């Protein structure tokens, strides 16, 4: 059975698309799935540094499409997981180097060999967006609880629906539970009612994300991290498991760690 191509998109830049692709790809591979991540952000490649694979690049996406190498030659295997691969974006080319039909063809080909093809979409809604979306059967829209990100997410959802994308799901990134609690941040419920698409997960705001990207090791490898847990649960949901999404006011880590924190802080 061929795999599924999922595009991760947002409209606005800097909301965590690349981090999401890196962590979901890793989480799915940890579940034993074969995964290839495609960086479709031509000219501004980043997924390679987030994955810590920047030194291994020889060929890239545009090389495949223009026939300068075979698809396998441009695929870089992950350092830890041998069923996880990356196809990096070209750094010195323009977005116009790729046509949506070519992307579609590539995704169809990759689906023959992989369970999941994850496409990291560039910010914006121009050519790069249309390329990234062309071969996908599913879309994940990433937003943060900020007005600018939500507005752009809504616009992107409209464009995806216009492209007849049927399966569109939402990830809310960088939710700050404390701020929601004191009423200074839109809650998961608020955002869901505004955007009106199914929610697949909520990622809490955490400094750990910067630390892990500094090192080039996706955070899902970290067993105790709440962010890692959130990504692992999203991976499980993508595979059809019924994993409930914790409420905004649910304390992370359970009673014991709350008790510990209380002791340490006093």
């Amino acid at each position, binding site marked *: 059975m061929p795999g599924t191509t999922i595009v991760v998109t947002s409209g606005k830049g800097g909301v965590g698309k690349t981090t999401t692709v890196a962590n979901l790809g890793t989480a799915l591979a940890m579940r034993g799935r074969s995964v290839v991540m495609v960086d479709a952000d031509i000219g501004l490649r980043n997924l390679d540094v987030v994955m810590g694979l920047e030194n291994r690049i020889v060929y890239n996406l545009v090389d495949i499409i223009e026939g300068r190498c075979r698809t396998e030659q441009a695929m870089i295997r992950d350092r830890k997981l041998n069923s996880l691969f990356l196809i990096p974006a070209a750094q010195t080319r323009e977005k116009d180097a790729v046509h949506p039909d070519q992307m579609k063809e590539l995704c169809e080909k990759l689906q023959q060999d992989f369970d999941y093809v994850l496409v990291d979409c560039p910010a914006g809604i121009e050519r790069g967006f249309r390329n990234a979306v062309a071969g996908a059967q599913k879309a994940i829209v990433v937003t943060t609880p900020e*007005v600018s990100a939500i*507005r752009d997410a*809504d616009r992107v959802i409209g464009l995806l629906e216009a492209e007849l994308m049927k399966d569109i799901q939402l990830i809310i990134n960088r939710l700050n539970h404390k701020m929601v609690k004191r*009423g*200074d*941040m*839109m809650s998961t419920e*608020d955002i869901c009612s*505004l955007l009106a698409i199914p929610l697949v997960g909520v990622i809490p705001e955490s400094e750990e994300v910067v630390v892990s990207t500094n090192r080039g090791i996706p955070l899902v490898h970290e067993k105790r991290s709440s962010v890692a847990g959130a990504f692992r649960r999203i991976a499980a949901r993508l595979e059809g498991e019924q994993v409930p999404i914790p409420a905004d006011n649910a304390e992370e880590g359970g009673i014991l760690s709350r008790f510990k924190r209380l002791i340490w802080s006093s």
Partner: protein
Amino acid sequence: MLDTIKRFFGDKKSGEVAKKRMQIVLLHDRLSISPEMLESIKNDILQVLSRYMEIDGRTIKVSIEKGENYAALVSNVQVKRVYRHVQQPSTESS
């Protein structure tokens, strides 16, 4: 000072403000309707109204009005005569 007092008496939290603002912004954004769609809405309105009154089809205007905290679909049409009974939808196509 006024701000402090306002806050003391339970002025709206910023999260709530953001939600209310986004409801209006997204409504406005989504109402960016194409001229073709507006034309289609116009024809549908005409069709429905024609069951109840005689109207001048040439005078109908449909537009989207966007205010600071609302958005409205505004339609103006000149009525010539109101029917005593509801007219059944025409079955010209059959």
